[in-house]
C-alpha cells in the first residue's frame, strides 16, 4: 500500500460520487424520509419509535453502501478500468481501502444528517451518546462496502449485483433482533443470527440506547463487526486477480 496511491484513489472515488448529484441527494434524503415515515407510523408509541429508529440508523448505511459499492466495483470490473488499474503500481489493498474509506466518509455524512434529524426533529431518545450511534453507523457502512466489494466478484451484470441485496442484506435484517428479539428465536435461527455481523451491530446500537456510558458488550460487538470487515476485505482481495483468462 502507498499513501499517495490510496489518497488519489479516495479522491477519485469521491469525485465520481460528487459528479452524480442525484445519487448524493438520495444518499442524504432517503434515510431522512424513511425516518419521517417511521416517526408518523409510531406517532403515539414513542418508545417503539426509539427502538426501531435507532436500529434503522445502523441498517440504512449498511444496505445503501452495500448496494452502491457492489455496482461501483462491478463497473470497475466490466469497464476495463480494473484491468488497467492492475497494470499500474496500484496495490489491491489501495483499491479496497480506497473504497472503504471513500464510502465510509460518505456514510459518515449520511449518518450525521440522519442522526441529527432523528434526535432534533423526531425526538429520538437514547441513554448513550449520539457520537457512538454515528460511529456504529459508519462501521456498519464499511461492513456494507466490504461485503459489496466481495459480492461484486460473483455478479456479471448489474441485474445480478442488485440481487445480492436480498441474499446478503435481508436475512441479516430479519434476524438481527429488530423483529423478534434474538433470545426468543428458535435455536437454529438464533444460531444463524449469531454468525451474522449485523446482529452485533444492532446489539451495539441497543447498548447505546440502554446505557449512558459505553459498555463492554458494545466494544466487543464493534470489534466483531470490525473483524468481519477485515475478513470480507481479505476475501475481496482474493477475488482481484491481476491475471485473468
Amino acid at each position, binding site marked *: 500500500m502507498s499513501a*499517495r*496511491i490510496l489518497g*488519489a*484513489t479516495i*479522491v*477519485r472515488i469521491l*469525485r*465520481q460520487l460528487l*459528479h*452524480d448529484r442525484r445519487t448524493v441527494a438520495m444518499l442524504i434524503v432517503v434515510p431522512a424520509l424513511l425516518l419521517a415515515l417511521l416517526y408518523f407510523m409510531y406517532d403515539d408509541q414513542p418508545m417503539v419509535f426509539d427502538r426501531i429508529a435507532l436500529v434503522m440508523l445502523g441498517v440504512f448505511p449498511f444496505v445503501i453502501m452495500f448496494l452502491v459499492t457492489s455496482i461501483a466495483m462491478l463497473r470497475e470490473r466490466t*469497464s*476495463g*478500468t480494473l*484491468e*488497467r*488499474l*492492475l*497494470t*499500474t*503500481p*496500484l496495490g489491491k489493498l489501495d483499491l479496497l481501502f480506497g473504497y472503504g474509506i471513500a464510502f465510509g466518509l460518505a456514510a459518515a455524512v449520511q449518518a450525521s444528517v440522519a442522526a441529527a434529524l432523528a434526535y432534533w426533529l423526531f425526538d429520538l431518545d437514547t441513554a448513550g451518546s449520539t457520537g457512538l450511534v454515528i460511529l456504529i453507523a459508519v462501521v456498519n457502512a464499511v461492513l456494507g462496502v466490504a461485503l459489496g466489494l466481495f459480492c461484486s466478484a460473483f455478479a456479471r451484470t448489474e441485474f445480478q449485483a442488485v440481487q445480492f441485496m436480498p441474499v446478503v442484506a435481508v436475512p441479516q435484517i430479519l434476524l438481527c433482533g429488530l423483529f423478534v428479539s434474538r433470545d426468543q428465536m428458535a435455536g437454529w435461527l438464533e444460531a444463524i443470527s449469531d454468525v451474522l455481523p449485523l446482529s452485533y451491530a444492532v446489539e451495539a446500537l441497543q447498548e447505546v440506547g440502554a446505557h449512558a456510558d459505553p459498555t463492554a458488550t458494545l466494544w466487543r460487538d464493534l470489534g466483531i463487526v470490525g473483524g468481519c470487515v477485515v475478513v470480507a476485505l481479505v476475501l475481496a482481495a482474493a477475488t482481484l486477480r*491481476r*491475471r*485473468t*483468462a
Partner: protein
Amino acid sequence: MTSAIEVQDLVVERGKRRVLHGLTCMIPRGSVTGLLGPSGSGKTTLMRAVVGVQVVRSGSIMVLGEPAGAAPLRRKVGYLTQAPSVYADLTVRENARYFAALSGYDAATAERAVADVGLADAASQLVATLSGGQRSRASLACAILGEPELLVLDEPTVGQDPVLRDELWKQFHDLAGKGTTILVSSHVMDEAGRCERLLLIREGALIADDTPAAVRESAGTDDLDEAFLRLIRAQEVTA
C-alpha cells in the same frame, strides 16, 4: 540489451480454444512495432500477455529484462486497452490526473498528455459525454502520460479522423525517438507502413516478423494489404 520484449513459444488458451500457438518474437527497444492481423487473430491476447494480465498456458515473456507482469514493470509500461478504460463519470482531466498520480506524476504531466491527444478543449468535459473517438483518446492520454519505457497500444487509432490519426502516429514516433518502445496493434493494413517493424499475425500464429520494406519485398508487392494476402496463401500452400 537491445530487445524490449522477448516472447518464447507462447501458448495461450481462452475458453476451450487455443488462441496463441507457440508464438515467438522479439521487439527491439526504441522502435514502433506494428502488430497487424484480422479481427480475432489474437492481437489483444498477445498484448494482454505482454502487460501481464493474461493467464498463459506455457512459454515465456520477458519485458524490459523482467518476466511480464513483474511488479517493477508496472511503472514502466503504459497499456491502452482496446475498449476505452476510463471512468465515464469523471472528466478527462480528472481521469488523467488519477492515472498520473498512480505512477507518481504531477498534474502538469496529466495536462500535457491530455493536450497531446488533442483533448485540451475537452479537458473539463465528462468522459460520458465524449464521442467514441474522443473517449478512446482520453484513454490513450492515461496510457502515454509520463512517457513510459514501453507502451502497449491496442488499436489506438480506430475511429479517429484521418488528420488526428496522422498526428497520433507522429506522436508515437516522437515518443520512440525519445526512447519509448511502442507496440501498437491495428486491423487495418494501411497503418502498417507507418511502423518500423511489423508482426503479422493470423489465427494465433505469426506469418511475418520484419520491416515493412522486407515484407513488401518477400511478398513481391508494394501494397501491404496484398502482401499480407500473399504471405497467407504462401503459408497455406506449404502447410
